[in-house]
């Protein structure tokens, strides 16, 4: 039983999978000698050589495409995009190639590629280094999307992602890297949500770093208002574990979804909508969604704080929902 940070847990998953399968390679900017700006690949180039851990030029679309080409010809590449904001440069290869190659070729190829990257605001990095773009990938058929919130989930899900024969977008959160936990060492299958905390009055579905805000909010709601929240972390956003979420909502009869990305055309309102379609008669109140403010991420901390969903916002919304319901 060892305590590891989220970054170390990811590093361990990479290490174990590279040790297990010599077709697994890692490429990206600064992932090699330096071990990645998020420190998730520390020591790997030293251990597995420059052949398997490769520092790339700043050519996002092409090194992702190169990894896709390698994936259909026998390798199992993991690609790091330093910030999810730069993945915009690689979307042609991700959306038009990775997600579609197998289908377009009638099932003749497999595309075992993991694209790992980091999302989220909170570090004063402003509009080009703080976005949460997971919803873009959830919208595209042919991609799986994973967003772990804990060190154990990060490790267990990354190991599953690397073993997966289909493209996986693996989205870390930059505020979570220092988060510590004693690892559970489970292998966590893609597509399975987790009930983080049982409850009876409302279901809170919270992704990535928002899980912690939801938990803090739930503590206060319990203590000060005797409201019992059931908290679910979907962990995989595509495909999403609707069985667990809908099951919970049928029990609590109320739901609130919280994510950091924008609400508009996002994954939250999709969850809300599917839950509503399937549990309408169980609902005491409309399923609500809190997302980041509909605004680029500003630099100053005063402004940055104002765009990220806050504990207070969650508390107020839960109270509003239950009063109305």
């Amino acid at each position, binding site marked *: 039983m060892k305590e590891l940070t989220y970054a170390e847990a990811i590093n361990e998953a990479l290490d174990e999978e590279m040790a297990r399968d010599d077709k697994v390679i890692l490429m990206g900017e600064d992932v090699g000698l330096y071990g990645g700006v998020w420190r998730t690949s520390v020591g790997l180039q030293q251990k597995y050589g420059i052949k398997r851990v490769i520092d790339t030029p700043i050519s996002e679309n*092409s*090194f992702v495409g*190169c990894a*896709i080409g390698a994936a259909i010809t026998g390798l199992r590449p993991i690609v790091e995009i330093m910030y999810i904001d730069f993945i915009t440069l690689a979307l042609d290869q991700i959306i038009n190639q990775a997600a579609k190659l197998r289908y377009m070729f009638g099932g003749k190829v497999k595309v075992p590629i993991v694209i790992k990257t980091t999302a989220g605001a909170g570090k004063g990095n402003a509009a080009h280094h703080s976005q949460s773009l997971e919803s873009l990938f959830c919208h595209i058929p042919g991609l799986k999307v994973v967003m772990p919130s804990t060190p154990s989930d990060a490790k267990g899900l990354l190991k599953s992602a690397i073993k997966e024969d289909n493209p996986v977008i693996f989205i870390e959160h930059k505020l979570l890297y220092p988060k510590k936990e004693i690892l559970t060492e489970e292998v966590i299958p893609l597509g399975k949500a987790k009930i983080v905390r049982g409850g009876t009055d409302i279901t809170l579905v919270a992704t990535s770093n928002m899980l912690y805000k939801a938990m803090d909010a739930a503590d206060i709601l319990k203590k000060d208002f005797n409201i019992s929240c059931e908290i679910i972390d979907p962990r995989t956003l595509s495909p999403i574990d609707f069985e667990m979420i809908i099951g919970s909502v049928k029990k609590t009869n109320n739901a609130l979804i919280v994510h950091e990305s924008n609400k508009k055309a996002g994954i939250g309102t999709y969850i809300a909508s599917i839950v509503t379609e399937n549990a309408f008669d169980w609902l005491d109140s409309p399923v609500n969604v809190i997302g980041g403010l509909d605004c680029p991420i500003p630099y100053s901390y005063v402004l940055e704080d104002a765009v990220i969903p806050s504990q207070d916002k969650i508390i107020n919304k839960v109270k509003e929902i239950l009063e109305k319901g």
Partner: protein
Amino acid sequence: MPEKINITKDLKVDFFKQMYTIRKFEEKVKELLPLGLIRGATHVYIGEEAVAVGACSALNSDDYIVSTHRGHGHCIAKGGSLKPMMAELLGKETGYCKGKGGSMHIANVDCGMLGASGVVASGIPIATGAAFSSKFLENKKVTISFFGDGASNNGTFHECLNLASIWKLPIIFICENNGYAITVPAKISTSVKDIAIRAKGYDMASAIVNGRDVEEIYKVTSDAVRRARDGKGPTLIEAKTYRFEGHWIGDPQVYRGKSEVESEISRDHLLDYEKKLVKENILSVSEIGSVKRKIEAELEEATQFAKESPFLDASKVADDIFS
């Protein structure tokens, strides 16, 4: 140009057969499209046959190619069979991609043809990745990445030539410079006359070849293939070629003069090569006739096969997304 490479009689016959097959295949496509049997954007390779044939003949059957939106010729030259090709173009279950891909996504992974692509220049990274694999796996395979003059203005061209150079990948970039990107002439969109010169920006070997001369293409590509297999890195080859047809069936071709097109078509490398084989006593006129009839018959058979094949049932539409 490397002179030492010897071209056997059999190979010459093969060149002719392949070029003729491509020509006839594309003529059949032109026939079936207006009938609605083939749908959607479809780009034929008439005029450019020598490039695919010369280049792919320099490869082994397990080497890779990555094609473009104009992929039928590449597919045939890399060993594709006419039946599943034609069936794919007719959208049938017996097609290479079960009718899910069509003309712009024709692929025959089993013979190393890793697919056409509807997004211009998007195959270049895929090809670079295939070459990356081969180097990594030390399996001595070589990859050819085909793309057009228009594609050479796209960022992935630049990024991948750089990647291939720094990683010394076993890849050959073949630019099929037919002078146009749909209706836009290279001279208004491309800052250099010879795209081959761009190799200098990547410290890469390069060559310009006559895209109508199948033997020259074969020789220059063979040389590049040998160097790639020997670990000596990538090459950029620019083939000067011409698209005899419009970009699409019915293209009014406002962007190029009738006289230009006529003069280009009048220099038909396929006719020339036929004459050359006769002159070199490799095939007699009557042998050529029977080669042609055989190919035409095969093509009829493939067309028949495609027409008679069933469509994949709509209930299977969402299969093959994930493995």
